[in-house]
């Protein structure tokens, strides 16, 4: 309805006088039977609302001048000169009647830098006659989050001073600062990092204070905090994930789920909440789809097959269920693994026989491996039949020499077996145990040294993958040199080292490389970083095109073959060259993909 029509329907001349508009509305209403003239009633209401809106807009500039955009919200300012606060409040309410239809104009706290302080100063004052204080800078103003058009600062509950140490708005501010990291302009699309341990603890502390405060204030303030927090958590997702559950419990967000009027931000958070709940449940081994979940979240790589003990029906059910109900948790699945299962059943049957055979062969290999490890494992703790009771003095001396020889090669002469025992006892035990095995096998000192060197290299590599950062770069640097040395003998030896982490004994590692490796090994030993290795899980990483170009220049291999090699295909020579080139290129790469790539090589 246009304003002109509105005045016509009301039968009065255009006026900013709210009382006149209401009077006209009342007269018209009393003259009609609203049950008989439904459309007429609707039109009359619409006209009145339009007229009142116009009147309010006319009144607004004046109000702003007077109260500095805080019309109707600062009874303290207004009442200070008045010796009778109660009367001041009444008159204040009268002044507010002019804008009764909608809440007062939305406050724009940011425009006034002194605002926070000024309101904060007023906070402790309690209007004894009415029992409530006009305290508090509303949180959103201090923070400057986009506001609801109807939200505005409100009078607080009876609690005059909320928290003497830190007022509620300061908690809100702190929470906001923790959740929104100072992002550089170009990182718009990058996901912010998750809260670190200390940040999470602090954020939860502030959240607790905010929630406690919300429960003590008036409904409007409560509603405002509810809206603000819902938007804050939505905007800062996934950084805000640890805060979701406690906030949802206080504001009852889940009871809003599925309602027509569910707020968009609450709908977003509820979806996350449901996903979180489902994930928690499915992570429990008792859950019927647990196996399917584990299968789909296990990273796959070239040559990976579907899990053997997982029912296709379960995986399909899980996949379909997650896609339908919790699309936001699909990212937990490994895309390659999902692709394996996503293939239609028919495409799979062709290789059915083959995969089954492979399964059994692999299972057989697995059993053998397990047996071997069982034997090897038992050696150190002395439960296997001990070697012949008495070793001759010469034998003991020979063992000592062999062990020290290995230590010299791996760590340098400054590390003795006793030193190793005190620094990394389990590694020292491995050294002696392998020596015992070597003697019973009749293998020579060089073979023994190679064996324990492989073990130490594996530990260095595994630790580096976990630690990441500069250590990973250092270890990969040495590894690239080792691969280069292995390539001198043959591409097969190079790839054998990549795949099995065993260095062929024909490989002659240059002294310079050995020296660098020793330095690194001693450094890691000093930092107790050579403990039992974590399982090295296969992974995958995105390699930017620019990096592929670098690899091309470094290796001199055409792009197509590089891509094949990166996917684990092509000749050993290509794969070896590409791996080395990729390590080199990644080490020199400034981009954020660097670490991810180094972690999977």
């Amino acid at each position, binding site marked *: 309805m246009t304003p002109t029509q509105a005045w016509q329907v009301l039968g009065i001349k255009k006026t900013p006088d709210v009382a006149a508009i*209401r*009077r006209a*509305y*009342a*007269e018209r*209403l*009393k003259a009609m039977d*609203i*049950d008989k003239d*439904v*459309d007429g*009633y*609707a039109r009359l*209401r619409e006209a009145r609302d339009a007229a009142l809106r116009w009147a309010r807009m006319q009144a607004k500039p004046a109000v702003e001048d007077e109260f500095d955009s805080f019309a*109707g919200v600062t009874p303290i300012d207004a009442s200070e000169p008045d010796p009778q606060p109660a009367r001041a409040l009444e008159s204040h*309410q009268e002044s*507010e*009647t002019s804008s*009764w239809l*909608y*809440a*007062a104009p939305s406050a724009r706290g940011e425009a006034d830098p002194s605002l926070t302080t000024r309101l904060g100063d007023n906070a402790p004052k309690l209007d004894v006659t*009415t*029992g*409530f204080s006009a305290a508090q800078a509303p949180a959103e103003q201090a923070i400057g989050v986009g506001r609801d058009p*109807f939200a*505005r600062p*409100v*009078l*607080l*509950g*009876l609690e005059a001073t909320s928290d003497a140490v830190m007022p509620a708005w300061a908690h809100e501010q702190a929470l906001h600062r923790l959740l929104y990291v100072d992002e550089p302009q170009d990182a718009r699309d990058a996901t912010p990092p998750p809260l670190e341990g200390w940040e999470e603890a602090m954020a939860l502390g502030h959240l607790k204070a905010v929630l406690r405060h919300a429960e*003590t*204030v*008036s*409904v*409007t*303030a*409560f*509603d405002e905090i*509810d809206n603000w927090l819902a938007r804050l958590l939505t905007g800062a997702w996934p950084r805000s994930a640890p805060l979701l559950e406690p906030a949802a419990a206080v504001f*009852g967000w889940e*009871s809003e789920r*599925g*309602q*027509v*009027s*569910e707020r968009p931000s609450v709908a977003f958070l509820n979806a996350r909440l449901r996903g979180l709940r489902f994930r928690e449940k499915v992570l429990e081994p008792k859950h019927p789809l647990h196996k399917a979940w584990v299968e789909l979240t296990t990273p796959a790589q070239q040559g990976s097959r579907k899990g053997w003990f997982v029912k296709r029906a379960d995986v399909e059910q899980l996949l379909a269920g997650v*896609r*339908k109900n919790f699309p936001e948790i699909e990212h937990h699945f490994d895309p390659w693994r999902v692709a394996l299962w996503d293939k239609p059943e028919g495409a799979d049957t062709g290789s059915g026989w083959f995969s089954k055979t492979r399964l059994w062969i692999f299972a057989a290999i697995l059993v053998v491996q397990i047996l071997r490890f069982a034997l090897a494992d038992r050696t150190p703790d002395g439960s296997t039949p001990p070697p012949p009771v008495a070793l001759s003095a010469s034998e003991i001396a020979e063992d000592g020499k062999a062990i020290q020889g290995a230590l010299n090669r791996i760590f340098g002469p400054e590390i003795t077996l006793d030193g190793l025992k005190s620094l990394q006892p389990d590694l020292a035990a491995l050294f002696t145990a392998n020596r015992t095995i070597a003697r019973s096998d009749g293998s020579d000192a060089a073979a023994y040294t190679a064996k324990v060197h492989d073990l130490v290299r594996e530990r260095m590599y595994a630790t580096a993958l976990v630690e990441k950062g500069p250590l990973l770069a250092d270890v990969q640097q040495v590894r690239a040199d080792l691969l280069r040395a292995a390539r001198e003998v043959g591409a097969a030896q190079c790839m054998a080292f990549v795949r099995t982490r065993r260095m062929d004994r024909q490989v002659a590692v240059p002294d310079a490389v050995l020296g660098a490796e020793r330095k690194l090994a001693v450094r890691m030993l000093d930092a107790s970083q050579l403990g039992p290795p974590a399982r090295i899980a296969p992974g995958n990483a995105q390699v930017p095109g620019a990096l592929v170009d670098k690899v091309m220049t470094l290796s001199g291999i055409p792009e197509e073959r590089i891509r094949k090699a990166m996917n684990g295909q092509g000749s050993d020579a290509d794969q070896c060259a590409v791996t080395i080139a990729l390590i080199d290129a990644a080490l020199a790469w400034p981009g954020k993909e660097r670490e991810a790539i180094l972690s999977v090589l």
Partner: protein
Amino acid sequence: MLIGIDLGTTNSAVALWQNNEDGGEAVLVPNALGAALTPSAVSVLPDGNTLVGAAALERVGLKDGATATSFKRLMGTDRKQKLGKKEFSAEELSALVLMSLRDDVTAHTGTRPTEAVITVPAYFNDRQRKATRRAGELAGLTVRRLINEPTAAALAFGLQDKEEREPFLVFDLGGGTFDVSIVEMFEGIVEVRASAGDNRLGGDDFNSAIATAVRGRLDPDGLLGKIDERRAEALLLQAAERTKRGLSDGQDAEFALTVEGARLSTTVTASEFEAQAEGLIRRLRDPVVRALRDSQIDAASLSEVVLVGGATRMPLVRKAITRLFGRFPNSSVHPDHAVALGAAIQGGLIARDSGLEEIRITDVCPFTLGIETAEHSARGTVQQGLFSPIIERNTPVPVSRSGVFSTMGDGQKQIEVKIYQGEAREVSGNVHLGQLKVPVPPRPAGEVAIDVRFSYDSSGLLEVDVEVPLTGAKHNLVIIDEEDRKAASDLESRRKALAALKHHPREEATNQMLLARAERCYEEFLGDVRAVVGDRTRMFVTALDSQDPRRIADAAADLSGLLDMLEANPPL
């Protein structure tokens, strides 16, 4: 004559509009016992006579009590309660209460009322409203209008001084339902801006909370487990009600009851009650927030918070309200009388009585109305069972709105329009109100549109018109659900069945009340005291049998004196 009735969960009341020289006023009609409130309780005596009100309530914990209370909570459901040999639905029990109120008015004015305005919780859904309307008709009253309880209270509050009022909030926490309305008064217009509520929250829930909390320590030997489950519950809830009242005055109160000659007792402290009721208190906030949000009003700009409903007397609830609104609530209206008085005012408005000519009231529809639809999801599947609102909640009524919908399948021959009420996005979470099938010419999907118009009038009657512009065909449905259709046929027979029930004559109400009270005391007290009560009761019954008015009066005075004394100073 048109009367106004507050049909409450715990208590009911009736009032009428009286014209006088100042214009007129609403007055409450006392019942046969002289009280303004009649407990909403129905009891069937062993001899088949029915009792309504205080006397029935006295019998609730008796061994052969056969008493129903709080049946308003079952309105709109098929659940029946067995009293004695007969089964009653909630609307039949309500009808019995309405009949008793109607008879009170007949006795008071000498004219038998034929029409009534009955109040319902604002958040009652369509089914519950229909059941209330039928209860009125079963009681032989033409229900001129159902009016929302907080609206009625607002009328009573607003007409106290007929002044202009900025938006105020009516906080109505009754025995079984909770409503919040935001109302404004100007130029003789009473305008409800928004209503919200929880029709499963009331004073009864606080009683249950107390009973649940104490049951374990009250009854370590499981004596209550040995008696009839319904009676055990009635005894517990009755005791809880007494404790709740006690806690309104002090920091702790006794929780005591007598079962099978054994007296069980424990103490409940205010802080324990507070902890126990925390969940209930929390539920008060949600409807308040919704009503404020819908009406775009700030809690701080409300001119008053008006308390209605008996449960708002609890200090616990008052404290919560004070915190919610940051101010002390207004208790200038009588929390138990305001709704009935408001209903009588509405009655006067309908009858266009003098003194009310200048008053108009406009209300809103507190819930969303719409139809079921389906849509293609992003993954290409069809998602069915979605709710498409046509009238949004808190729209001023009467209102008429329409929406356009189209076919989903190629060559679809008919569209089924299913009508729902509620706030859930999927219809399965909403209340189904009715449906109609509209034949359409077979065309490719999406090429046939229908225009669905909802018209909702002031007394909550929904009419649905569907037009097919392609053919010009029109279809109309006045929402009548299954129960209605069934009810229309047998309403008359049910009315007769109810009328055929033997009622205790009104003039005997005082004696019946005394007898029921004596029976309860007999079960509550032990030993010698019990023997004395039994003795005096027998004397009273003998006097009743003699039909000698003087002897009856003497014996009654004797017995009631004894009971008063015993109850004022319990011997235990």
